[in-house]
């Protein structure tokens, strides 16, 4: 049995983390959102509509796939993959977007804004806005627009306006700041469809609850398949939405190790990675208190990852709490190990993963050979189509006519 999650408290705290660190103008709208969420959860018609959309629009349940060739190649752990990459729009992000768009409609909001890093959340937001006929504005760092061009085009094709953010590092953090500035300005007409388990309460809680279907399904699927729980679960952690989505169902299962994999980037030097637990310390950014990459004066550090979706200075507050309690372990995988993991999965299983998810795969690959008789479960949060340009840049040998 999985235990019921008792976090966060009424103020949105996971231990000391989370909370509501926002300008007063946003407090009443956050309270309104929290109220709408609690009411919706009690409303049978809301739950039924969401369930129907998840099944028939998004494609749930997603398969639990046993990666036999990969397991054989590594010669250790038996590896299962939760195929969130097979969802409509290509990543887990659609789960949360469907939930929040129904909330936005309930609250009578006509305009939706979102931030996006890799573009997966932006595409999922643009998709649900098209589905419900709502205006959609997506903020995206200029640097991310360059490296995720395909997703920019997809958003535009879906009818969204993509606003290029040129402040700061021109990545996810700056896109969140611009989205918050838009929200504080247009708060009566607009719902901010935040895409990760980040930001001010109630977002980390509601994003988790809209994604917990991943872990609930995976837990039932693996019990049915092999009659036991996995030994270790791997998920990448940017803000941490896919990770909290798969972890939640297993938090009460003390024997199941939970491993979150952050972006190790180019090196361990501040500014060259996004490993908040090894390189950061608790602080406040964009509404929440959690582990933050910052300099000695409390200014937020620049981050780097080959994967735009993990390139963020703060980790979701529930992960900070799981970390401090020792319930989950957080490690990092470098750019190059993630790239290599993607190639390995492509060539052993015929699955090209998103660069974000490749970080989780990299850590599983590293541990698998020494984990004979163990069962691994990897959350494959997204597919790699959007990363084709980056894979091409990094595997130039495959881009020649005589390539093998």
């Amino acid at each position, binding site marked *: 049995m999985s235990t019921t999650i008792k976090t966060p408290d009424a*103020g949105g705290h996971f231990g000391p983390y989370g*909370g*509501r*660190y*926002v*300008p*007063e*103008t*946003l*407090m*009443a*709208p956050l*309270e309104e959102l929290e109220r709408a969420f609690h009411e919706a959860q009690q409303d049978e018609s809301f739950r039924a509509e969401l369930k129907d959309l998840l099944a028939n629009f998004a494609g749930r349940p997603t398969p639990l796939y046993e990666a036999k060739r990969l397991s054989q190649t590594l010669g250790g752990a038996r590896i299962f993959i939760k195929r969130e990459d097979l969802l409509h729009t290509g990543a887990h992000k659609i789960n949360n977007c469907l939930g929040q768009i129904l909330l936005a409609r309930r609250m009578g909001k006509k305009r939706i804004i979102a931030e996006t890093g890799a573009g997966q959340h932006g595409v999922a937001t643009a998709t649900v806005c098209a589905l419900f006929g709502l205006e959609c504005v997506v903020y995206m760092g200029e640097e991310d627009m360059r490296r995720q061009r395909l997703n920019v085009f997809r958003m535009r094709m879906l009818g969204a306006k993509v606003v290029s953010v040129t*402040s*700061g590092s021109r990545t996810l*953090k*700056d896109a969140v*700041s611009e989205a*918050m*500035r838009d929200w*504080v*300005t*247009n*708060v*009566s007409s607009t719902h901010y469809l935040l895409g990760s388990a980040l930001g001010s309460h109630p977002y980390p809680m509601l994003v988790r609850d809209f994604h917990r279907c991943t872990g609930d399904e995976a837990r039932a699927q693996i019990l049915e398949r092999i009659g036991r729980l996995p030994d270790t679960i791997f998920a990448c952690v940017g803000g941490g939405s896919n990770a909290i989505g798969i972890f939640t169902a297993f938090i009460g299962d003390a024997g199941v190790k939970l491993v979150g994999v952050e972006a190790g980037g180019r090196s361990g030097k501040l500014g060259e990675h996004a490993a908040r637990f090894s390189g950061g310390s*608790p*602080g*406040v*950014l*964009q*509404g929440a208190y959690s582990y*933050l990459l*910052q300099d*000695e*004066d*409390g*200014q*937020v550090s620049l981050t780097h990852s080959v994967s735009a979706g993990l390139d963020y200075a703060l980790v979701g507050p529930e992960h900070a709490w799981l970390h401090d309690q020792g319930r989950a372990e957080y490690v990092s995988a470098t750019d190059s190990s993630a790239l290599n993991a993607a190639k390995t999965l492509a060539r052993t299983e015929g699955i090209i993963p998103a660069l974000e998810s490749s970080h989780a795969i990299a850590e599983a690959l590293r541990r698998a050979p020494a984990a004979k008789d163990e069962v691994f479960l990897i959350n494959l949060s997204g597919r790699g189509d959007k990363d084709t340009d980056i894979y091409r840049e990094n595997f130039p040998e495959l881009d020649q006519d005589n390539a093998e």
Partner: protein
Amino acid sequence: MPSSERIARCFEACKQAGRPALVAYLTAGDPHPDRTVELALAMERGGADLLELGVPFSDPIADGPVIQHASDRALHAGTTVARVLEIAREIRAHSSMPIILFSYMNPLLRYGFDRLCTDARAAGVDGCLFTDLSVEEADATVAAMKKHGLDTVFLAAPTSTERRLKLVAEYSTGFVYVVSRTGVTGEQATVAGGVHELVDQLKSLTSLPLAVGFGISRREHVEAIGGYADGVVVGSAFMRVVEKYGSAPDLAAQLESFTRELSGRS
């Protein structure tokens, strides 16, 4: 330690003089930390009654482009929390104008909040306002500030419910900062409709002075708001002057002249 009461006395003196207090925001360290003292004193000569000394932060979510750029310049020039406190101390050596620190939480948490309160009070700072601190998260910070005799200024917003306005009034000392409109900081052509009603609503909840800010940039705004509020906060309009004359030798004179225009004092 009791509050310095400099803020209370300042609003009282303005009231006696029949005019709103001009609360002037200045990003510490823009264009360079060595110049902030001179600029603050120039603003005081021009008629600023109370100084909001901005602590620059890398990710100012409540600020529009003008203060974002001012923060970037200040950080680029090497401004730290410790340097801001030195600046406050130097201003205090030359002025009895109330000083409040205007900041996002993270740089101060990193500095150590109790240490900040001790050092701020020793530097002659009278209070603090944190743009991203809701009253819900404020118990520990308010307790620390009270212990050190610092006033705790909170924001009231057009979106605040009656319940929230009561909380804001309850947590505030010195004055309440009334946000005139939804949005980020930045100059506007006109004062937002509805702010007069918000001020009236707050008057029924608190006897603290009420200062209106966000979007205020002209003498006519100061006069209009002065008709119903105790103070007017101007920020981006000052930082626009700093941006324009940053490298010019007469920056302080320009800032003084613009402050005089806003204050209407000769």
